[in-house]
């Protein structure tokens, strides 16, 4: 009796998923045929496909519960996030690879046209793109400076000090600020050539023409100063958490051994902090590779592309030419480079920690 009920439930679940799948495929086919101009019926835009996907996802979840009972209910924890990610990350990324092979000007009426991967040939002959990629090297290396400062601040905050909470709060605040607002507050206002306080201060130090964003290297450093100003608190908090989790005995033992503060830092604290450091550096580098808003808003990539990041360059290429095909090709190539770079870095970091410990 019970077995039969379970079997019929399982069948109901399977039927539900099947019906929902057929409905989803049906709606997609209908829209494809309409888009191809084969039939007149269908919907004015593709949004019903989105609704059909949501309905299908719900049916899939309900079907799991009907079919597998408690195990299906457990699957419901992960299923929503997986289906969401497939819909809004995996599918658009694959779609992006398709767009990358097209010559597609969004503002022209001609529509998409396959162009034999000409985008990728053009990419290799685009000196501005390669310039942006080399700039990324600078921005990534600069993360090490951010890390050093953040480590120093974290150490300061773990020292025996008064008003620790106040300092921690003050150090954290830049992290809460919008990079666009920071672009204005610091980039356009405090670094203002004529009367910005930073410019006045640099004049006082003896630089007669403190036009930071007019020279390639100072502009690059200026952008990095702002990006670092916003990001250092984030690294600092991760390191602070790591420092507070360190076993006290080890540090005390080092002090009893008569090691100076400098020695005990390099011999004890720093090696123990390596795993946390690598996590913090990795996350910060990932975020740095996305850097765009500050560049777009302060320099627009100038002077002469000196401050361009890949993201800000693609943004500009798209605004100038509105060619989604070429823009996406640049972005996809960048994604592949990032994946290779991060994989190599992780391997090296792993080997390095293993050798040290």
């Amino acid at each position, binding site marked *: 009796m019970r077995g039969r009920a379970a079997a019929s439930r399982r069948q109901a679940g399977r039927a539900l998923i099947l019906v929902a799948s057929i409905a989803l495929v049906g709606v997609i086919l209908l829209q494809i045929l309409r888009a191809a101009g084969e039939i007149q019926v269908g919907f004015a*835009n593709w*949004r019903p*496909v989105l609704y059909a996907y949501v309905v299908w996802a719900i049916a899939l979840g309900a079907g799991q519960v009907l079919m597998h009972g408690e195990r299906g*209910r*457990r699957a419901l*924890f*992960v299923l*929503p*996030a*997986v289906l*969401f*990610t497939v819909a809004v990350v995996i599918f*658009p*990324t694959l*779609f*992006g690879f398709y*767009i990358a092979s097209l010559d597609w000007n*969004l503002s022209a009426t001609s529509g998409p046209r396959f162009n034999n991967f000409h985008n990728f040939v053009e990419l290799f002959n685009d000196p501005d793109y390669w310039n942006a990629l080399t700039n990324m090297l600078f921005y990534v290396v600069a993360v090490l400076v951010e890390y050093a400062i953040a480590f120093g601040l974290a150490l*300061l905050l773990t*020292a025996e000090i008064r008003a620790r909470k106040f*300092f*921690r*709060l*003050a150090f*954290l*605040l*830049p992290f*809460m*600020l*919008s*990079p*666009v*607002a920071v*672009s*204005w*507050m610091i980039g*356009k*206002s*405090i670094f203002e050539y004529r009367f*910005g*306080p930073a410019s006045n201060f640099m004049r006082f130090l003896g630089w007669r023409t403190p036009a930071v964003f007019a020279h390639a290297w100072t502009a690059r450093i200026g952008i990095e100063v702002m990006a670092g*100003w916003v990001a250092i608190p*984030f690294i600092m*908090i*991760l390191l*602070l*958490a790591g420092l507070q*989790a360190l076993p006290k005995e080890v540090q005390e033992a080092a002090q009893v051994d008569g090691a100076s503060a400098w020695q005990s830092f390099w011999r004890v604290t720093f090696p123990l902090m390596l795993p946390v450091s690598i*996590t*913090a550096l990795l996350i910060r580098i990932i975020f740095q590779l*996305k850097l765009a*808003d500050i560049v777009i*808003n302060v320099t627009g990539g100038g002077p002469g592309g000196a401050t361009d990041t890949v*993201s800000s360059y*693609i*943004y500009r290429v798209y605004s100038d030419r509105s060619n*989604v095909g070429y823009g*996406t090709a640049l*972005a996809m190539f960048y994604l592949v480079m990032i994946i290779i770079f*991060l994989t190599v870095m992780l391997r090296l970091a792993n080997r390095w920690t293993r050798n040290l410990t």
Partner: protein
Amino acid sequence: MASVMSQGRTSASRHHLRRTGGQFLVYAALITWTCVCLFPLFWTVTTSLKSARDVTQGHLIPWIDFQPTWKGWRSLGLSPDTIFNLSDPREEFLGRFANSVIIAGGASCLALLLGSLAAYGLSRFRYKFGPMHNSDILFFFISQLILPPVVLALPFLVLYRELDLLDTRFGLVLVYTLTVLPIVVWIMRDQFNAIPIELDEAALVDGLSAWGVFLRIVLPIALPGMVAAFILSLVLTWNEYFFAALLTASSAKTLPVMVASQTGSQGIDWWSMAALSTAAIAPLVIMGILLERYIVKGLATGAGK
């Protein structure tokens, strides 16, 4: 004996001297960096109270260097004397502000919901989706952190045009949710891992279902971590510019896009820009001051593993 004692005393006093010297350096460094962190905020808030002459002469300290006026806030329609009058800039600002609240809040809630469920599942049960086991699924979620917005931005532009989601709040909520979901999963999984599984088992024996255990037992304990994940999501989505600049045109514009569109124009009105920036950053600054310990605690568990 005496010489040993005096030696001890001098070394102690030298030690003391070095200690106070060290203390002095520590506080000097702390105060210097506090200035670095707070000066831009101070500058922006005071600039919103300056008149043109005070800006160009680089005056710094209110009431001593210059006489504060409501000029910047008046141009936004937010000064005490204009707050009850009709004002177009204020209408625009409040519209953008509402967009930002709804989009950032909505995306953070959605990401917290999806991410917490997934993180709890991954921390407690064993899954197998095809060839993927728990660690693969976790990597699948977290690895999306590396995806730069620029990779998804143009495909989304094309897709949203077809889906009629361009320049809608709902469209931006979806995009922002995907950008913060990996971080939520990362923080929440460590939070759930820190809660002993014996607690779940005891509740299961008492007859609760897996969902009952999650909702009644685990969720209340994990609440501080959820607050941290929520704040972090809120910071990232409130401040996001790249997607918002590409995917919105007028009705769903967020605050960062509004701030950016003012900086581009020639001849910036310093005071009104400063007032706008202050108003745009104020909510998060206030939230940061009130909820700082949650952020620190939440990231602390994240960094542990």
